[in-house]
């Protein structure tokens, strides 16, 4: 295809450039050619007559009016081959681990969504060994689920743990706005866990331009989708989608878009959805599971809020604990009736009692909690937190369920827990005999 070069740049912004050109395609890839011959990528994002708006992958800084723009006549693509396993790439798909560039098939980025009729109903539990996940908010193959946490919580550690402790065939890490030490941490954890040869990393750190960061999820997901179509079970880790949304806001702002909430563009929901919706269990092929990170202070902030409406639940991390309230796995119902007969019921009973306890915590502040039942609820809450909410405690599901019964019997009478008589008969521990809990019972 004929590649046309233009030099009449109209304006240069932080991440946006506009130029007059003809015959340019929407979403076409272009090159910015600096006077010294250096090159950087750009992509067409809007056309208006001869006016072409481009998004600059290298940012606008240093771009001058005597730069040239060459339109490449092709859309953005990313390489795909098995040899990419173990390698690290940038947000434009260039290797950044010092290794050689690979000859790979090119695949399209941000392609259309899979036809829903080709999706299967997710039905395989992913055992993570984390009690708060396996018991209370079971993770299911092909689920899309982020960790909601304040910046500084150990979410990346949990992300890496889950990915390496499970049976994923391929792990793809999409790092957006990572600090260098976070990037280093991921590399180290993956190597320590012996997972390097099944992992591909697409990494954007704070020194790279925001447009590269914007591309990371698309590249990671395009490659992941290919592996999934080949029958692999793929895990994609995206950290941190709040920064990604922030970059989106910056670019939208630079384009003079009318902001919706808190300056975010009106299509934030659709933008996030088109990424997360790549998660799928595909008929007669593999699956794509997405674990994300959404840093936040307040769950009603537009990013976690929109994310929550898109993803199939979220894991809420606070003060180093995985919280019960605020966490949710929408797909757990697909699997937790086939694990053990008490799973669903005890999960609900534990939650209901904890919620009762939370009300007492409020009341305690008024100094009004004096009765025995309320005091037991408060004790229960403490045990619950200590025994179950540590995201780095490893327990098989069955052990974790037994632990739940231990905790209930430690603090409550049988008729107080609201469980059916049948289950109580089957699972209520004998007096003073705990299966998992290492504590001398009261009395």
């Amino acid at each position, binding site marked *: 295809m004929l590649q046309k070069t233009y030099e009449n740049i109209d304006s240069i912004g932080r991440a946006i450039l506009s130029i007059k050109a003809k*015959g*340019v*395609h*929407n*979403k076409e890839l272009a090159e910015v050619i600096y006077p010294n011959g250096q090159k950087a990528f750009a992509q067409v994002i*809007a*056309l*208006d*007559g*001869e006016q072409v708006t481009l998004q600059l992958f290298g940012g606008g800084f240093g771009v001058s009016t005597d730069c040239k723009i060459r339109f490449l006549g092709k859309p953005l693509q990313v390489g795909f081959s098995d040899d990419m396993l173990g390698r690290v790439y940038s947000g434009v798909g260039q290797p950044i681990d010092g290794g050689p560039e690979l000859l790979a098939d090119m695949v399209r980025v941000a*392609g*259309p*969504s*899979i*036809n*829903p*009729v*080709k999706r*299967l*109903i*997710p039905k395989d539990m992913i055992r993570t060994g984390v009690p708060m996940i396996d018991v209370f908010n079971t993770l299911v193959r*092909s689920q899309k689920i982020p960790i909601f946490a304040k910046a500084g919580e150990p979410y990346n550690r949990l992300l890496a743990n889950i990915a390496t402790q499970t049976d994923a065939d391929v792990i793809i890490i999409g790092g957006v706005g990572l600090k260098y030490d976070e990037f280093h941490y991921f590399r180290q954890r993956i190597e320590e866990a012996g997972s390097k040869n099944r992992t591909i990393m697409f990494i954007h750190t704070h020194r790279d331009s925001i447009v590269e960061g914007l591309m990371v999820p698309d590249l990671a997901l395009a490659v992941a989708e290919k592996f999934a*179509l080949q029958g692999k079970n793929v895990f994609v880790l995206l950290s941190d989608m709040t920064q990604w949304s922030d970059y989106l806001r910056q670019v939208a702002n630079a384009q003079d*878009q*009318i902001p*919706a*909430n808190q300056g975010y563009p*009106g*299509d934030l*929901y*659709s933008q996030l*959805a088109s990424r997360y919706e*790549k998660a*799928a269990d595909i008929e007669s092929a593999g699956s794509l599971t997405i674990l994300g990170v959404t840093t936040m202070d307040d769950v*009603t902030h*537009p990013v976690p*809020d929109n994310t*929550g*409406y*898109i993803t*199939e639940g979220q894991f809420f991390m606070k003060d180093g604990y995985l919280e019960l*309230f*605020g966490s949710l796995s*929408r*797909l757990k*119902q697909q699997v937790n009736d086939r694990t053990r007969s008490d799973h*669903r019921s005890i999960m609900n009973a534990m*939650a*209901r009692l904890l*919620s009762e306890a939370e009300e007492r915590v*409020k*009341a305690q502040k008024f100094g*009004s909690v004096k*009765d025995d*039942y*309320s005091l037991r609820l408060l004790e229960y809450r403490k045990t619950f937190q200590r025994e179950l909410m540590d995201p780095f405690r490893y327990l098989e599901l069955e052990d974790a369920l037994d632990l739940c019964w231990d905790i209930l019997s430690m603090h409550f009478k049988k*008729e107080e827990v*609201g469980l*059916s*008589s049948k289950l109580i008969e089957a699972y209520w521990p004998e007096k003073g005999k705990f299966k998992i809990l290492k504590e001398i019972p009261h009395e």
Partner: protein
Amino acid sequence: MSVNESLVGAQTTEGAVMNGEVAYIIVEDGKRLKAEVIDVKSSDVVYLQVFEDTSWMKVGDPVEFTGLPLAVKLGPGILGSVTDGLQNPLYELGKIEWFLERGIEVDPLDNRTKWRFTPKVNKGDTVTGGSVLGTVPEKLFEHKIFVPFSLQGSYTIETIAAEGEYTVDEPIASVKDATGNITQLKMAFEWPVKQPMPFNERSVPEQSMPTGIRILDALFPIAYGGTACNPGPFGAGKTVLQHSLARHSQADVVIIAACGERAGEAVEVFKDFPELIDPRTGKSLMDRTYIVGNTSSMPVAAREASVYMATTVGEYYRKQGLNVLILADSTSRWAQALRETSGRKEEIPGPEAFPMYISTLISAFYDRAGVEILQDGTTSSLSIIGTVSPAGGNFDEPVTQATLLSTGSFWGLSRALSDARKYPAIDRIDSNSKYPSLLEQEEVTYLMELLRDGKTIASNIILMGEKGITDASYIRYQKAELLDAVFLQQNSFHEVDGVTTPDRLRLMFDMVKEIIDTPVNVEGKEEIRSHFNFIRQAFLDWNYMRLDEEEFEKQKTKLLNLVKKRGHVAENV
């Protein structure tokens, strides 16, 4: 002329352009991308919203205007199918490509299936738009074949097909108008989606529609032909509620408009429903269901079309004499799609950047629901239940507010309740409905009073502790808690508890009333709580038993004994 995501500006070279007409943009590789005119700027500049990805479009690509508004094809074969927002059957598309590649259109109705047509008119009969030409059997009922509603005035039947098998595209009749023009008629015809079908005669919704969900049927009912909305923050149970309604509502036809929501949720419905048997008909649940799936990663511009398409299909089945229920999940996504387009058009934004006209559109949408008295005197209805997904779970936002003004039932979902696992997490105090309950009005008042008392006492307990209130108040509080736990809460994933028939609802209410009315003469908070714990336990066990189970009556007796035991003890004292 200009391309900005889904908004494309085009220059017309000849002929008139109609606002709302369908156009096709032909991109370099020859693919035809469907679009709709949404703005005519000056005599030769129009704005189009494109229903497909606009990548690789360029200035100078030709645009073909069809002169016709966006329409839906109506005829036998809709029930049981799954289409995208533009009525492309997804299973058919799936045979062509695994991914939803752009520019592919498939016939909305299968034109190979032969339907057994029985004529109901004769040559020489006088007909008009909406007259029945004949019937074909479709799934559960006789599908009436109409003279297209767009034909106005009197027509005479020139020819009518004999009883036999025909496809939707074969001519089955021809009619002559007053001036002698002849029109060929087929079993299927088109109707513009944005134009409400006129009612033959409109009536008001006043008969409640059982949903199988106790809190709704008892406290916040919906009526045939009524409207309801269930706004709520994410994770409060909107989706589970919608699925439950889709399965158990006593409607003849259920249309699910999955608008801008997760694909997985629509998949659950269309993969599960064919396997599920509807106890009322003995047939597959899918036979009464039609799914429009414009999920969140599909092109945004088609969201609006999907909602209107579902409604038009609903109106069509109402004309068939059926009770139709539309579940629109979520109307907020539709509103957001309008916001995206409005922003690109650089319209002056209203609150939260939604377009100023959003409330008018929402009201007009819900107004398409209603009760209709048909030409033959029978009554049919279209009910709409719309999900709203307010930003931050805050009901003050424009879409929720506009929806509240337009609907008859309000089911506010609460995060506090869902955190406490009190499902369905419909706010017991703040929700409301203007339709009649399955219970008597005074019974509803009776329950609501208890719930309000319970809430007041609960806040007193937080302030003053259990010791700060009287035993009498504590008993009242425990009764309210019990009512919530055994009657309002419902396990929608349980085969038995998940759906409550009107008969069973009555049984359960009578039991609840018995418990509430029986004086409890127990002293001490601990004792009172324990008394109610035993009752709760027995009641929950009862809830999980089938009506025809042997244990059912035994458990009922056991429960009554538990209730009376304490009353009896007190009498002896």
